[in-house]
């Protein structure tokens, strides 16, 4: 190059990270090694480089030793790259003259031999020293942020996030798949440990969502496409036809009475199938929006076109509209809160408990509806065969803590099982047995709740139930379900005949979590819940900037934690929006015009249509505003005329040279 060659003066800093690095890597050896590499002016080791004094060290050295390149060997760039860039900038240097070497996550934490780990650290530091020589001064690009937010999922997490954002004056789109918002919480009777009524605390929030001027609520809708990037997402929402016009329906339910099906005969999803509904229905009295919906799989008119359509006639507002089609809405938002919730474990996957075989085996959600005053039995605990149970067994950990099903503890089952024990006992006077492996009551006032249950005379048997069946050994078991379990406190096997079995099913990701993950370009952990950016320090962020998580889609949690997390996600989204702009990494690609042969092979490679071909010049050109910095065109250019900032060929080659220098 024609520029005057400046003398390269590199500062290398090796972090101990307490013993996290120093315990496995001989940091002194690494610093010594680096000090002997050409161009290295200063090489130091320090206990915690990310601490203030650590950063100060860099700043001072830049001043004192006229350093113009900085290498820090510490942890993952995903964690502290920004920290040290800032420290470099504080020293008066362009932050992109800095490079971070990961000798913790990729080295000290994963190796067991000190010499091997040290040798690897040396090689990686060597690579960085080679690399920074060719670093250039770069600036971050600023892009304005669209102040609207999309909230996906209308359970308590989505509701709370939407209200928080809307109260802060932001435009919110709340998209819910079901005909009503409310999620699982709307189905619950009471909430633990305070036993306050779920509907009483949830329904006011639901109606605020409906009436809030800043919230656009789209139920019976799904996000079908999302494009763009942090601050500027373009989203397509598909609204399913409910065959009832939302703008006209007032929820008077005349149409339901008028339906040609005189009897409600189809299982109501909201009642877990215990209650029945018609093809046209409102899922439950407080449904929001309170607009009827027509089930296309049940409605005679939708299915066959042959129905006298008495519903249409019954509606004096003319709200019923069989011509509705799925409709796509386009919106622009700056941030997205994903709050898609969980799915209850399918109890049929644990066949030893006889769910689906014996009618008196219930899941916990079914019992929530059964004890609910507004449920299908008006809160009366009556079995499927019409009897009232005298003894009830509640089995914890169904589908949880198990290699064959789900390995995790679902976190809420102990507490909701205690709650159900209390409610069932209160509603039916039955003798209740709880079967648990470990009693997990770590939340506020949880242990006190357990104590209360102990005093109420609920039986607690420590042991995982081996099987439930109707095998009879003696007359006392006749007509009962028999629970066979080792009482691990007594150290013997017990047979306990009961009338009703309640399965404390665990929480798991939705069946389509993988598709949702792809849609939003976020990650799932091994168990399938969405992965947060950092388990401690970025619990509501994802690896995609501008997309935040709230509620059980990130992992099982109870209502207080869900609400707290939803608030946090809303706050993160607010922080993003109120900053007004986002800074984009300057890792974009550019074309060196004189070297471009105009072969056009790069043009179709770009998924963002950032590359165009200029006919009169016979050259390709990259629109930097559209480039996302993947470098695919760079890797494919046959004449090497496309470069990528931060990942120039020369920089990668020197890194390769560095890691292999000791061969």
């Amino acid at each position, binding site marked *: 190059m024609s520029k005057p060659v400046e003398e390269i003066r590199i500062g290398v800093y090796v972090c101990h990270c307490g013993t996290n690095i120093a315990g496995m890597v001989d940091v002194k050896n690494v610093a*010594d*090694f680096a000090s*002997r*590499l050409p161009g290295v002016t200063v090489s130091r080791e320090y206990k915690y480089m990310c601490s203030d004094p650590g950063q100060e060290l860099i700043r001072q050295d830049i001043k004192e030793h006229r350093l113009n390149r900085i290498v820090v060997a510490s942890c*993952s*760039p*995903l964690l502290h790259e920004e920290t040290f860039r800032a420290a470099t900038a504080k020293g008066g240097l362009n932050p992109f003259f800095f490079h971070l070497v*990961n000798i*913790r*996550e*990729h*080295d000290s*934490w*994963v*190796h*067991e*031999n000190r*010499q*091997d*780990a*040290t*040798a*690897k650290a*040396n*090689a*990686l530091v060597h*690579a960085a020293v080679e690399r920074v020589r060719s670093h250039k001064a770069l600036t971050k690009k600023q892009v304005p942020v669209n102040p609207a937010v999309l909230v996906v999922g209308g359970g308590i997490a989505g509701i709370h996030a939407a209200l928080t954002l809307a109260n802060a004056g932001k435009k919110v789109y709340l998209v819910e798949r079901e005909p009503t918002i409310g999620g699982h919480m709307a189905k619950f009777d009471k909430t633990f440990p305070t036993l306050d009524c779920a509907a009483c605390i949830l329904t006011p929030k639901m109606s605020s969502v409906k009436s809030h001027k800043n919230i656009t609520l789209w139920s019976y809708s799904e996000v079908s496409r999302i494009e763009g990037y942090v601050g500027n997402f373009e989203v397509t929402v598909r609204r399913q036809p409910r065959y009832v016009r939302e703008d006209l329906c007032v929820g008077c339910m005349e149409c339901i009475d008028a339906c040609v099906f005189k009897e409600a005969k189809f299982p109501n999803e909201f009642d877990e199938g215990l209650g029945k509904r018609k093809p046209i229905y409102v899922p439950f009295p407080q449904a929001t929006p309170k607009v009827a919906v027509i089930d296309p799989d049940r409605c005679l008119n939708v299915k066959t076109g042959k129905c006298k359509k008495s519903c249409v006639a019954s509606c004096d507002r003319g709200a019923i509209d069989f011509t509705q089609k799925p409709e796509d809405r386009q919106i622009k938002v700056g941030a997205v809160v994903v709050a898609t919730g969980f799915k209850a474990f399918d109890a049929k996957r644990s066949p030893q408990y006889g769910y689906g075989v014996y009618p008196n085996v219930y899941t916990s959600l079914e019992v929530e509806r059964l004890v609910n005053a507004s449920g299908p039995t008006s809160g009366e605990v009556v079995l499927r065969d019409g009897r009232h149970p005298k003894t009830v067994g509640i089995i914890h950990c169904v589908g949880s803590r198990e290699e064959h099903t789900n390995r995790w503890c679902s976190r809420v089952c102990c507490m909701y099982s205690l709650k159900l024990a209390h409610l069932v006992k209160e509603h039916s006077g039955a003798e209740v047995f709880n079967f648990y492996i470990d009693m997990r009551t770590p939340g506020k006032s949880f242990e006190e709740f357990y104590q209360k249950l102990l005093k109420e005379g609920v039986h607690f048997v420590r042991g995982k139930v081996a099987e439930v069946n109707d095998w009879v050994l003696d007359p006392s078991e006749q007509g009962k379900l028999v629970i066979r379990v080792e009482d691990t406190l007594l150290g013997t096997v017990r047979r306990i005949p009961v009338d009703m079995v309640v399965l404390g099913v665990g929480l798991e990701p939705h069946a389509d979590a993988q598709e949702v993950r*792809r849609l939003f*370009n976020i*990650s*799932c*952990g*091994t168990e399938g819940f969405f*992965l947060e950016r950092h*388990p401690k320090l970025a619990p509501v962020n994802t*690896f*995609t900037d501008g997309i935040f998580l709230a509620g059980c889609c990130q992992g099982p949690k109870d209502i207080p934690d869900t609400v707290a997390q939803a608030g946090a996600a809303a706050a993160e989204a607010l922080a993003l929006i109120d900053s007004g702009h986002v800074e984009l990494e300057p*890792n974009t690609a550019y074309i060196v015009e004189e070297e471009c042969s105009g072969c056009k092979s790069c043009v179709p*490679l770009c*998924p963002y249509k950032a590359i165009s071909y200029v006919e009169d010049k016979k050259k390709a050109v990259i629109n930097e505003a559209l480039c*996302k*910095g*993947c*470098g*695919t065109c*760079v*890797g*494919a250019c046959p004449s090497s005329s496309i470069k*990528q900032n931060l*990942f120039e*060929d020369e920089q*990668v*080659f020197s*890194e*390769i*040279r560095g*890691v*292999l220098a*000791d*061969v």
Partner: protein
Amino acid sequence: MAGAMLNLIMENQTSTNGTASGFEPRIVAFFCNWCTYTAADLAGVSRLKYAANVRVVRVMCSGRVDPQFILDAFAKGADGVLIGGCHPGDCHYIEGNYKLLRRVRLLHRMLRDMGIEDDRFRLEWISAAEGEKVKTVINDMVEKVRKLGPLQLPQRFRDGDKELEGEQLKAEAAHV
């Protein structure tokens, strides 16, 4: 410096556990920022243990990996090259990994023709959640390359050059 390095290498060889020859393969890896690099971070956070033979070069997308990088790594003495990208359909940049895949297919054939065994060059899809896979892939690859033995391309180049030089000298001598 060279002394210190040699020392380290010597120590390395005595400390290795596997083979009698004490050969420890050097593997250069190109990991994409979003999936595989993050998975390697996860392996670290989970304190999984794997062989120390792999040196990771971070790229934003596996699509950035230029065939030259791979050839260059072999030329500079790598015994193996590993590329880690997002699973098909999961690419942060929509489909950079597909574009890489096309190059890799071609390159595999080329390398084969050059006498570089298939096991020395590997492409793996590893998502951000698959820390465990980082471990198994690295261990497996190290094991396979260890069995193949050193590639020693730089050495072979030097030998080739020498031979060529010799031939030239001979030719010149004959000419004279």
